[in-house]
């Protein structure tokens, strides 16, 4: 398992949050999704054998939100 931290552009509508949350959660191998509305960040644990941080970034971009930075932390 690894943890992805995606920095998005500023989020303004609370409904964006639910949207991103559900879209990311629906990806295979993703758990513990947390959308930080005010910080404009998404944190999620994911299974590297099933998906990648870049894939999550694409999912969010497809919804119409800018992904500014992607960080991945390997969990020991």
């Amino acid at each position, binding site marked *: 398992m690894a943890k992805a*931290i995606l920095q998005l552009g*500023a989020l*303004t*509508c*609370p*409904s964006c949050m*639910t*949207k991103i949350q*559900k*879209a990311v959660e*629906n990806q295979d191998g993703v758990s513990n999704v*947390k*959308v*930080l*509305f*005010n*910080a404009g*960040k998404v944190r999620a644990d994911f299974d590297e054998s099933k998906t990648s941080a870049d894939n999550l970034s694409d999912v969010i*971009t*497809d*919804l*119409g*939100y*800018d992904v500014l930075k992607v*960080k991945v*932390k390997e969990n020991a």
Partner: protein
Amino acid sequence: MNKLNIWISKHQNKITAAIAILIALSLISNYLIKIPVAGTVFMIIASILGAIPVALHAFSALKNKVISIELLVTIAVIGAFIIGEYEESAVVTFLFLFGNYLEQKTLEKTRSSVKSLTQMAPTTAELVNEDGKTETVDVDDLDEGDHVLVKPGGQIPVDGKIIDGTGYMNEASITGESTPVKKGIGDKVFAGSLTDNGTITIETTSVGEDTTFGKIIELVEEAQDSQSPAARFIDKFATYYTPAVLIIGILVWIITQDFPLAITVLVLGCPGALVIGAPVSNVAGIGNGAKNGILMKGGNAVNTFSHVDTLVLDKTGTLTTGKMSVTEFSDYGKDKNHDLALLSAVEKTSDHPLGQAIVKHVNDLGIKETPELPELDTVKGQGLMGQNDDFKILVGNARLMKANNVKISASAQKDIDGRMNDGDSVVLMAVNDELRLVIGVNDQLRSDAREGLQALKDAGLKRIVMLTGDNKVAAQRVAERLPIDEVHAELLPEDKVDFVKKFKEQGSTVAFVGDGINDSPSLATADIGIGMGTGTDVAIETSDIILVKSSFDALAHAYTLAKKTVANTKENIFIAVGTVALLLIGLVVGVIHMGSGMFVHEISILVVIFNAMRLIGNKSQKLDSNQVVQAAN
């Protein structure tokens, strides 16, 4: 589709401006140059242009099974378009988009405090390679064990240990202490602090989000999003409310057969201010706290803290600084200054906290003399002793004096008893077995404790209780000088937990203030645990509220801020619900239409944001330091 989606969300503000121009052109055509056909065409273009971004948002939400406000607006606009109300549809989309724009701008303001904090986080570092050359790298690329170089005035990029060089560090962002601290080889340094001078090399122990500063930022970011009970309720409510409005709209259409009325209901029912009202107060309140060194772990903590009526304090390290200082001394020799210089010289050889307090005190008195000393020996449990051909010196407790048959006069005994009664530790000095000095040393009370506790009481706190492991006399002496209602002394850490439990059973909402090191059980048991003055991991984890700066001014500010934030949330919910109620009445009476309804909605959203913004600038009055000294005397 996706590309269009991104393009539109990037250019949404330009689209909004274009719609505004089209509406203006339409009004000019209608009323100035009187070509109503052109006016209608402009309105149609504006409606379509405006409906596209809103509809796209609605659609992508719907794909994820979320019925959003955008969906209500989209249906309403399409409906208005079908029945030929182009003016209404254009105005509604414009107001909705323009409202979004204003929301975005004002929300940025409420988030500014935290943003300024995150911007303080280091981004690059000077990595020292094995060949000794340095290169600038992104902090994310650093690993544990990497060596980084920090130049004078530079920012420490990682948590680590100094392996070369010394310098003065400004650690205000971590400890709240703005006086620079000297650090040398082997000392720990923290990411986010600054070097005032000196070039140092650091061996990295943690990077980025794992550093203390990173954890503080993470905590604040998560806190702003963790909702208060009110906000959570509203959120749940909104997920049912929005679909309910849609159903009501359809019902209205079926029952009254009045299509314009049905789509107006959709617009009026938008839960705009309701959804944003409670979270925005939270963000502004928590942001204000973060700016003032108060880290509150989310809306829940804010809410509970605002209801606290009993504050339980630990004495050592909380009410007091945990640092020793000289309270009073009596002298019996002929040359007081020389005797003090002798004492200081002896104490300089020891690293006992009592000794350090005495050295500092003598230094503060301006005594510079450094007398010659005989070689000193430690007498275990008694003090220090030294003897040469010239003289014999004894520094220590009463047992040391007794063992050397030093005579203690009745008046000296009275001085000693006086110090003891005050709860001081007493240090005696004898030269040639003749008593010269009696010095009382005690843990220093925080300078703003009295004012801060008084401010808490003024803010509505009912009871302040002090718990301590110290003896009763020392505890009583501290309590007398402060607005404290109850004192319990000679307690073990588990006794403190029992007191907290007892207060909770009595029905009080209890906050416990401690340093987070040996108080963790009490911090966790209390309704609200407040960690004071330690940027340590333990305090960050067990506390609900963390005071970066050890000050009672900050504690009092945190309490009033929590109360104000909760009140602000309530105001916002009232405004939001009131708006919807007024709109519905307006609809029934017949004074509200789709366009004006949307206008009122957007106004109410701005009103709640502006109301929350009042929390950003709010800072309780700074204490005047002179005033505090006077009060303490």
